[in-house]
């Protein structure tokens, strides 16, 4: 196993995912297996190879600096779990 219980708990926290305690062994096993598969990459020497982030290697387009979208706050907030006066509601963050 390349990962242990503590690693999984740390990764889950970084990803903001709650994982049930009795499920941690499953994730430990599955993620370790996937990382073992991925390790096949180490067999290849990539010393002078430029990383390729994108298949077409394009650069970001620029557009004219003018307004193209209108404010649709009410339309978009109709599907929100909790809103009040045009704001999204979350649990209290400041005492």
């Amino acid at each position, binding site marked *: 196993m390349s990962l242990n219980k503590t690693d999984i708990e740390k990764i889950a926290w970084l990803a*903001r*995912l*709650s994982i049930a305690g009795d499920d941690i062994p499953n994730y430990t096993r599955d993620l370790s297996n996937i990382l073992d598969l*991925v390790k096949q990459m180490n067999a290849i020497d990539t010393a002078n*190879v430029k990383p390729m982030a994108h298949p*077409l290697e394009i650069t970001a387009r620029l557009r004219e600096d003018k307004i193209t979208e209108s404010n*649709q706050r009410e339309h978009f907030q109709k599907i929100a779990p909790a809103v009040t006066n045009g704001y999204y509601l979350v649990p209290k963050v400041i005492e």
Partner: protein
Amino acid sequence: MHQKTLAELTQALHQKEISSVELTQLFLKRCESLNAKLNCFVTLTPEHALAQAKAADLQLQKGTVGPLTGLPIAHKDIFCTNGIKTSCGSKMLDNFIAPYDATVVERLTAAGMITVGKTNMDEFAMGSSNETSFYGVVKNPWDLNRVPGGSSGGSASAIAARLTPVATGTDTGGSIRQPASLCGITGLKPTYGRVSRYGMIAFASSLDQGGPMARTAEDTAMILNVMAGFDERDSTSASEPIEDYTAKLNDSIRGLKIGLPEEYFDERLDSTVSELVHTGVKELEKLGAKIKEIKLPNSNLSIPVYYVVAPAECSSNLARYDGVRFGYRCEDPKDLADLYCRSRGEGFGREVKRRIMIGTYVLSAGYYDAYYLKAQQIRRLIRDDFQKALTEVDVIIGPTAPGPAFKINELMNDPISMYLSDIYTVSVNLAGLPAISIPAGFMGNLPIGMQIIGNCFSESRLLNIAHRFQQVTDWHQHTPEGFN
């Protein structure tokens, strides 16, 4: 009528053999009666469809219409549809009514097509069997105990069962081609950037590409004509000019140079699949094509590279699901961290969580160079292999999937074996190339697909080869028993 292709249905509509409303009712009736068996739709949209069909009939009477006006289509539930639930196969978006249309949906609707429903899929397109869907597994119409493939399994199953003549799909690592192969239909993954990603729920942004699924290459070309093209709302949309993809379908393929990669036909490939693909290639030889053995030396690394790149991009893309602005929210969160963690923990299924965690890990401090950077370097080597091969040959042919449709639950507890069902498809996404899967025969009762890979923006050529193949073979015309 449901056995007709899109090209034949156009004729029927224009010659007034049937109206769009009648045609829509006919397909809706099939969907409603057979979906219980197949589970290929998450949502059927009869009212919406009939309103669209009425409008199409008015246009048809006036006579100023395009070839797609009044014809039914189903959209993979990854494409946003204004006012209609767009679930992406996830509990996270079970309550999500999209507030706008994806460009693909907008264009097909503007061309007069009728949306009959939204098709089932692996959750957030992460899967090769449709078993990761929150809405349950889709059945393969060729054998109801088997998977349809994934992630566009609902679209593939619906087309094979004649519930819709065509459908949209998306392909990040094989998600159009592999289910097309397993369900015996035709599916095209276009060049990266050819079809707009606007309104297509993101999985891995440097790999995701929408595309058409149909029974024939001709129908595939007809809807690609509307789906393809530059979209300023997609920041990586390709600006290369589009073509009339139906124009060259009948061109001769005499002198076509086909490359067969030795790595695709090694001992890992089922021998019957190998035979069927070779038999398919012989048909193309009879039409004047020339065969050459080629090498793609780094292709065995495409699965490891993909399982770094795709999870890395997914962990970033899926960070937006936070229980705040839309989608699932947990009950009674005690603080903000609890709101995030439980909404995501409860809203995502197991495979999605696995991939988010792998992505988070490979991007985290201390591991980035060893995993993510390394994967991007090998991605270039894989792309370079294709580039080199495609200077020697016009197209590359191989299997689409290593075998036929597997049994439901067969691979569900073994993620690695599941990942290997995309072994012949993922490298194409890493390189950004177009590829088509077409039916090439049967193994027992189960269809097998053949994959044709081309250079960037060679969709027209791929469709031409597929069409010529379908004129001399009838594998694409077989109907699964019980769905005649």
